[in-house]
């Protein structure tokens, strides 16, 4: 075998090889904390050597993930790339993120393979009589359970940016969804007309939120999740319904913050927002730690999304359990202003049919006086599921679970 490389060939190939190795060699130059903040998760760990023999592909895949998380200089390069797409080419980071006019950023789908399923659920399903009737029946079911258990249960449905401003969706959205969302923006959702039988209180604060929507910092306009003033309105509507005074010493500060949706992709797009602060509401870390410990087996390994708050000067002496989707994550500290204590569990990743188990476990940590279920308006199926599970539980016709929760 005779393979000859000229001097120039050797020199160039060696130089190219050394150059291409730089992003790997320079990995130690990066700060681990910055990388974890960038990825918004823990960095992939190096695989265990013992795993190589039984499954080398899995071992090497994990090693490649380790490398992919740390390749230098991933942070500035990613920010540059995403910024170039967004600011120069006016391209959203994903197709389901809709760049509207006047700074609006809407979300149309849960992923790019289901581009319009969010618009479908919040704008079209909310005008579907069958879905509305099923929801109304679930409220009746909750009322029945609540009465049997002597445990107040309330439901809050939060309007979304896509319906509050449905008439502001850009023309890139298919006309079917644009017209439906524009109609919802007029308050034509069937959820508006739903009333829960006592003792359940049902709140869908579309009207007061719509009345405030002209404030540029209201929702905020670049978020999927409401924050600030919008949550204050939701809370006040609910507290008013149950006869609790809203807090008096709360501050509402108008400022700027990056769009929640775009920040997920590393694009800092500042928009006006309100920050709601109640100095009397503090995080209750010990209760939260206790909650995480008892709920461990109801969620995927290592994944918890719970919060606990304590109010030093509440109008109500009640302890509230807030069961929610992700809309509850930001709503929890705002709602906590109305109660003595509030614990929130984001049930997005909870194992199916675990509501009863969750209630029983929470009761080991503290006595609950009221349950509040909070979801966004396209997620009424979650309430229907909770209601069905509670009604079908063995304790539905006994007082045992009620006594365990409210002790």
């Amino acid at each position, binding site marked *: *075998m*005779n*393979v*000859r*490389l*000229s001097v*120039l*060939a*050797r020199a*160039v*190939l*060696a130089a*190219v*090889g*050394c*150059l*291409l*190795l*730089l*992003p*790997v060699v320079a990995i130690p130059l990066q700060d681990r904390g910055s990388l974890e903040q960038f990825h918004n998760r823990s960095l992939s760990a190096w695989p265990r050597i013992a795993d190589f023999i039984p*499954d*080398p*592909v899995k071992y*090497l895949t994990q090693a*490649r993930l380790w*490398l*992919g998380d740390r*390749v230098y*200089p*991933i942070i500035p*390069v*990613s920010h*540059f*790339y*995403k910024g170039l*797409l967004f600011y*120069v*080419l*006016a*391209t*959203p980071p994903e*197709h389901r993120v*809709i760049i509207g006019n006047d700074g609006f950023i809407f979300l*149309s789908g849960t992923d*790019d*393979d*289901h*581009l*319009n399923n969010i618009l479908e659920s919040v704008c079209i399903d909310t005008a579907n009589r069958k879905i509305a009737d099923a929801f109304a029946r679930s409220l009746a079911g909750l009322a029945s359970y609540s009465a049997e258990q002597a445990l107040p249960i309330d439901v809050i449905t939060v309007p979304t940016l896509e319906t509050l401003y449905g008439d502001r969706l850009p*023309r*890139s*959205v*298919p006309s*079917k969804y644009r017209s439906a969302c524009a109609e919802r923006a007029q308050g034509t959702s069937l959820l508006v007309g739903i009333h829960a039988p006592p003792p359940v209180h049902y709140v869908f604060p579309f009207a007061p939120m719509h009345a405030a929507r002209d404030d540029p910092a209201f929702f905020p306009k670049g978020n999927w999740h409401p924050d600030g003033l919008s949550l204050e309105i939701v809370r006040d509507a609910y507290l008013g319904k149950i006869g609790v005074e809203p807090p008096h010493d709360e501050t509402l500060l108008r400022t700027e913050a990056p769009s929640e949706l775009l920040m997920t992709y590393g694009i800092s797009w500042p928009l006006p927002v309100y920050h709601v602060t109640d100095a009397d509401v503090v995080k209750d870390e010990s209760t939260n730690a206790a909650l995480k410990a008892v709920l461990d087996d109801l969620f995927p390994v290592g994944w918890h999304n719970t919060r606990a708050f304590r109010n030093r000067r509440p109008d109500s002496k009640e302890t509230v359990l807030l069961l929610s989707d992700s809309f509850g994550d930001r709503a929890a500290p705002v709602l906590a202003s109305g109660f003595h204590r509030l614990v929130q569990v984001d049930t997005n990743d909870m194992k199916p049919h675990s509501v009863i188990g969750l209630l029983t476990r929470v009761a080991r940590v503290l006595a609950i006086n009221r349950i509040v279920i909070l979801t966004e308006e396209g997620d009424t199926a979650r309430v229907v599921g909770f209601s069905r599970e509670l009604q079908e539980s063995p304790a539905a016709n006994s007082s045992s679970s009620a006594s365990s929760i409210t002790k």
Partner: protein
Amino acid sequence: MVFSSVDFLFLFMPLFLLAYVLAPWKNMIYVVFSLVFYFVGEGWFTAIIVSSVGMNFILGAWIDRSRPFVPRRVAILVSVFVNLVPLFFFKYARFFARVLLGTPASDWTSSIHLPLGISFFTFHAISYLIDIYRRDAKAERSLVNLGLYLLMFPQLISGPILRYHTVAKQLRRRVVTGRHVYYGLVLFCLGMGQKVLLADSLAEICDPLFAQSRNLNTATAWLATVAYTFQIFFDFDGYSNMALGLGWVTGFYLPRNFNYPYISRSITEFWRRWHMSLSQWFRDYLYIPLGGNRLGPIRTYRNLITVFLLCGLWHGAAWTFVLWGIYHGLFLVIERIGLDRLLRSMPRPFQHGYAILVVMFGWVLFRAHSVRQAARIVRTMILPTASGVGVWQVLHGEEIAVLAASILFSIPLMPRLLRGSAVVPDMPPWPREIPTWSYGAGAICALVILAASAVKIISGSYSPFIYYRF
């Protein structure tokens, strides 16, 4: 491991280049790195391809030493059969079990692992054996050299398909000069750009559209098809150019695989420009042995349909691929019968329009996950439908720029414009009288493309090769 990944570009490739430059036993180095490349994706199933090397080493020697005619013919038939058995088992057992025996989708055949690139290395092995049988080459006496031919990582999992006799001498003796390195690296960068900047961006248009094919309107159905038409070309041509470039850098002259197929004026011409290494393999090892066009028109048409049916099946064990192959075979037959003559009397734009439309409708079949989905999309393309996912939901600044660039780079305009100002990578022999600044301009263009591709790769775009599992 794909070429457009962090681990390949910033770890595997530089280590390989450094080892190739610094260490002796370059063929052994090449084989070791190729095995590592394969092992990363296949783990202990690498034993399959290693076994294939050993088995074909023995079979090649057997054919070479066989006495003339009968035993030699027996030897080649047995050898080809022995190579086709694992291909059939790993790739087609499940398909034929379902089709012929009606076995359920969840039976034991569904757990058969499909080795990466099995179609490619099987065809390489068959080419090796047939070239020995035809006395176009002698059996390789070095196991390392045969291993290098079959395992060479630039073309291992996605081609181009190497004919043994074209690389036999290069396995034993090759020279790498500065010009090899220049042309090879520039071509590699160009291929990387085609794959990462064009094909992967086009995938971001067509993948979500194909995923929700029930919700397409006519405009988005056409958009999905056009995007996929360009995606598959740049994906495959990009990968082939990267393979060619790496081959040149290491002293191998790999065959060109694409020659601007979308400027074709007929399907006949298309297949002379698309995946040329595959169509030449089928021509030389199947079509001509079947009789080619020497046995009258009916047998010629039969041979064409047979070859393209098998070509479709080679691409995948599914009805969509089989029908795609038959679809192209039928058009080849129709053109032979008289359509080609008719087309040549038409204006050129009409000829181009006919060819690209036939190809595009064929790609719908190729891309769809089922015949039903393909039919649904084609129906939506033909019958006006207004509702569904909007065009402007998937078409933004980046996508428009990529589509425009795709049209531009799918025709041979840019190389003609650049010729004279920058050195454009082309098949050897390369011209000698080139001013230095011209090399510099080419290198700068290549570095810009590489840097842009690296930005996108590091930013974390997922980019599997379409032909990865063939």
